[in-house]
């Protein structure tokens, strides 16, 4: 049981870290802390995990809920230090991938629902079924949202 969990950890640690990294404005330290919290939460609830279901979908759902909680708290106490580190990390990252800056800007301009589905699809490499499970929506909805997000992104880049 414990061995299973550690296997899962090794398999998904980078994906979960990446998930937070994109959503927390490339803040490495915060993403690491959030990754740790998510795996500790998952370990705590591992007994309730249904082995017939996808672990990836399950852990992403935990990550998503944890992120929502984080946003709620962050809204109440907007830490200056966090804001500073955000900008620094993002700047570094964008410099590294200069050719993607227009894409990042366009993604950030998208509405939350479309941005989320796009990130899950392209940065976290989840398939439609897993995205549907994370977002608690149908696969059809996911497909539609991805199409709409890509369309909006194309329009946004074209306009620039």
């Amino acid at each position, binding site marked *: 049981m414990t061995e299973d969990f550690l296997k899962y*950890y090794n398999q998904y*640690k*980078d994906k979960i*870290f990446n998930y937070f990294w994109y959503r927390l404005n490339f803040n490495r330290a915060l993403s690491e802390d959030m990754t740790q919290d998510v795996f500790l939460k998952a370990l705590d609830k591992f007994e309730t995990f249904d082995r017939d279901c996808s672990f990836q979908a399950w852990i992403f759902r935990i990550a998503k809920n944890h992120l929502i909680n984080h946003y709620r708290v962050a809204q109440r106490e907007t830490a200056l230090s966090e804001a500073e580190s955000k900008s620094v990390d993002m700047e570094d990252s964008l410099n590294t991938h200069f*050719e993607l800056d227009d894409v990042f800007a366009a993604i950030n301009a998208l509405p939350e629902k479309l941005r989320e589905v796009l990130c899950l699809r392209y940065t976290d490499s989840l398939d439609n079924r897993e995205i549907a499970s994370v977002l608690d929506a149908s696969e059809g909805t996911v497909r539609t949202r991805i199409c709409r997000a890509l369309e909006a992104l194309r329009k946004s880049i074209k306009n620039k």
Partner: protein
Amino acid sequence: MITLFFFNVWVNLFSTLSMDKLEIKLNNLPKARLGWRADLKIKTRLYTVILRKRLASEKMRFSSGSRALAGSLLLLILIIVPGYAYASAAVVPGDFLYPLKIGLEKIELNLARETEKKAEVYAELSARRLAEAKTMIEAGDGTEADKADKEEKIKNNLDQALSFRARALSGFSDSGSGATTSKAKAMDERGEAMLINIAQSAGTRAGDDLVDSIALALDRVKNGKSLKNYKEDREETEKRPDDREEGRSAFIRVASSTEEEKSEEGRDNERGFNNANGRWALDKNGRFSGTSTSPLTGTTTADRDDISNLRKGVDRLKKDLRRPEFEQKDVDDLMDRLERKIKKAEEIGETDEDGAQSLFRSAEALSDNARHFIRKRSVDSENSLKKSQRKK
């Protein structure tokens, strides 16, 4: 097969060609990896939690069933063991629970604040020592060494019982309550009954010292004393350094002085003697009553007349006990003991007055309580005896 391969290649090529620039860019978005430090930190935390969970589950396993049972058992043992040790006469000197019993008795004694209450506790302790003595006697002798050791323990118990009795009576006397006289009387009646039981269990098989101790204790409890003298009695016994000798020695000493008082107060009536002229005979209760004057009472030297009086008394006792209902072997054994004591007292009378006096006192006490040490014949043997007498 080849067709299927080409089909797959065509599908991949089509999807790549159909993928526009944006999708390629999105697919090429950088993927961040967890740093090794963070990885190590998270793993450490995970291992710690896993370990804690395992320990907790072990604990849970015990707490659910076994721990509850073990706890209940422990609680039960903590209540039952001291309770058993405290209340049971089966816990005797030498048992591993005996120190616990003594400890609890001390606590009980310390908790009793009032004089009367303390006296009641002493009375209870006296009865307990006698009950333990009875248990030890009834348990059998074992080897010769065991027998000697056991008899020594029984004697100690009798000494302690007498000492506690003296303290109880002193307490009853000090409290001054009217009810204390009846309490003292009840204690002595209970003590007498137990000592008679002890004497019957010991019989003539017991060693000389033990028989003497039982006889002297019986003599003391049966004869009784007025409550006003018990305080003095206790003070005297407390002065003595050796606890083991306290009971018997105090008895010999106090008994002598009491005899003096009793002779002045008309002791004959109090003891129910049926012959005030020094004749030894069984009284109406079946007990042997002694002379109106003790062999050495009030004197410091062995008196030849007293010795001859005691001898005559023993001879009469011997006749009285020559009855079919008594085991004659026991009677003979007891008479031998009495003879030896008197003879020894005669021998040492000139040189060791105290020793001679003690021997006379013990001889007197033994003859006084001789009946209790002698077994009665069984009904079958009695019937056969009667038949043979009829035939004659």
